[in-house]
């Protein structure tokens, strides 16, 4: 059995001026959860596969005269298996515990956190909230990844708790795989651009569904002369994200409350439009509309670059079933549908030239002195920092 790298303690999480202050027990709680998640992903998850190979699949074959052909057949066959049940119940519990730990940390100090964010946000031209923006149903139908209240719910005036909880907990959920500031995705995109397209110098950058801005801050830092705009529908995320970016000394980044399906910028306004883990939280109507908007907003020679989990095409039905777990059990209702799509065809339908479509794999870029190498052995089917990047040049 391969030796897994130890996940870094939560004490190494990146702190900025609006990050909640924490005591010993908060750290210990997140450390327990990171190690529990690691156990479930690297120790127990392979045993679920064993249960499939040794008893679930043979029973299916005996009854049907063939092997399961789709992830849905695998899922229905696995439902009654005790190892699958235990692994699933523990995963769900772990996610709920993570939410309670993060919310407990944030809500007990909400007044000073709201005040700090207010000080950083007040009068800034780089935060533009618009209360008329409607939270779309694909964001509000369920609380995505079991985060109570989702991205958008405000508990008090000028609330930032959803953002602070989100920011505090990802480090534990991912076992530090996204780096100290959970920005390994944005850093991966910035690094890819510098290595693969060193002459590409975007003057205007747009990030869609930015949440706390963790993946757009590295772009703003990589292109300090660019004007960068990050949009989201959620006010608590934007208030927190702006205060976070400001306290990190990033001043070329505007946070705007807006629906990515329809933005009031002129045609061809942006040179780069990025997303990170955005499309799987969208919907079947919203995704093509938003892609059309991306195409409209890009200048000729501009780039649409999107980080996502891998698509299911050509994937072993068992692996697709495991990756689908979050759709059914972690409140990600569009995850399952989105990962079926032919993304090349979708981009083409949105107006992109088929020959300018690209797809590649990128790994999170993190500080190796503190964080373990992302490894295939530790693949957590949805949480590890190995992504598909797809997109197109206009």
């Amino acid at each position: 059995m391969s030796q897994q790298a130890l996940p870094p303690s939560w004490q190494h999480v990146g702190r900025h001026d609006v990050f909640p202050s924490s005591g010993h027990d908060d750290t210990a709680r997140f450390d327990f959860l990171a190690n529990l998640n690691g156990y479930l992903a690297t120790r127990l998850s392979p045993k679920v596969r064993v249960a499939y190979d040794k008893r679930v699949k043979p029973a299916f074959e005996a009854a049907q005269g063939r092997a399961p052909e789709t992830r849905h057949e695998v899922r229905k066959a696995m439902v009654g298996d005790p190892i699958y049940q235990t692994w699933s119940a523990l995963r769900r519990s772990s996610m709920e515990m993570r939410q309670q730990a993060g919310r407990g940390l944030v809500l007990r100090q909400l007044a000073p956190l709201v005040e700090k964010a207010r000080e950083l946000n007040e009068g800034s031209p780089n935060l533009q909230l618009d209360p008329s923006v409607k939270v779309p149903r694909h964001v509000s139908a369920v609380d995505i990844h079991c985060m109570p209240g989702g991205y958008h719910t405000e508990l008090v005036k000028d609330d930032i708790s959803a953002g602070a909880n989100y920011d505090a907990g990802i480090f534990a959920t991912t076992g530090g795989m996204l780096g100290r500031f959970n920005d390994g995705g944005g850093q991966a995109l910035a690094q890819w651009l510098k290595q693969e397209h060193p002459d590409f110098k975007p003057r205007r950058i747009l990030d869609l569904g930015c949440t706390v801005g963790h993946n757009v801050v590295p772009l703003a830092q990589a292109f300090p002369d660019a004007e960068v705009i990050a949009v989201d529908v959620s006010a608590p995320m934007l208030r927190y994200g702006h205060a976070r970016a400001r306290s990190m000394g990033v001043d070329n980044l505007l946070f705007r409350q807006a629906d990515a399906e329809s933005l009031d910028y002129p045609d061809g306004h942006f040179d780069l439009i990025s997303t990170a883990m955005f499309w799987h939280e969208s919907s079947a109507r919203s995704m093509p509309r938003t892609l059309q908007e991306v195409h409209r907003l890009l200048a000729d020679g501009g780039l649409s670059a999107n980080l996502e989990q891998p698509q299911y095409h050509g994937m072993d039905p068992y692996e697709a079933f495991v990756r689908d777990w979050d759709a059914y059990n972690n409140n990600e209702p569009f995850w399952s549908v989105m990962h079926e799509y032919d993304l090349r065809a979708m981009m083409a339908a949105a107006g992109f030239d088929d020959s300018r479509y690209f797809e590649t794999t990128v790994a999170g870029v993190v500080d190796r002195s503190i964080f373990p190498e992302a490894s295939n052995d530790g693949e957590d089917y949805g949480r590890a920092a190995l992504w598909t990047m797809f997109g197109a040049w206009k």
Partner: protein
Amino acid sequence: MSELPDIDDIDPIALAGTRAKGKRPYFFKDPDVERVLSIAMVIAMEHAVTRQRLDALERLIESKGVATRAELDAFQPDAAAEAERTTWMQEYVARVLRIVQQETEALESGAKEPPMADLIAQMRDE
């Protein structure tokens, strides 16, 4: 839009354990098993937290040479310390029994939540 509560009027302990909107999946044949497992896992976590705290304390005490095990056994908190310890116990109990809180919240809200498969089908068309 309804008025949001004043920041001093929210209950951080209850809100920390709020349930997430969306029908909760239960994996075992008997949901009682899942309830007990969920509670047991939190106890496991809180036990680990305490163990870490004790470890830190013992290392500090040892390195500074300030206290003995006998003194630890004889410790009696004063009134202020007792109040702090009681507040901690309240938060502890709420954490351990979170799943019960969430099930009663679901019951109280009375909202019928569709199965995730139905939502997935709806999202496909929206």
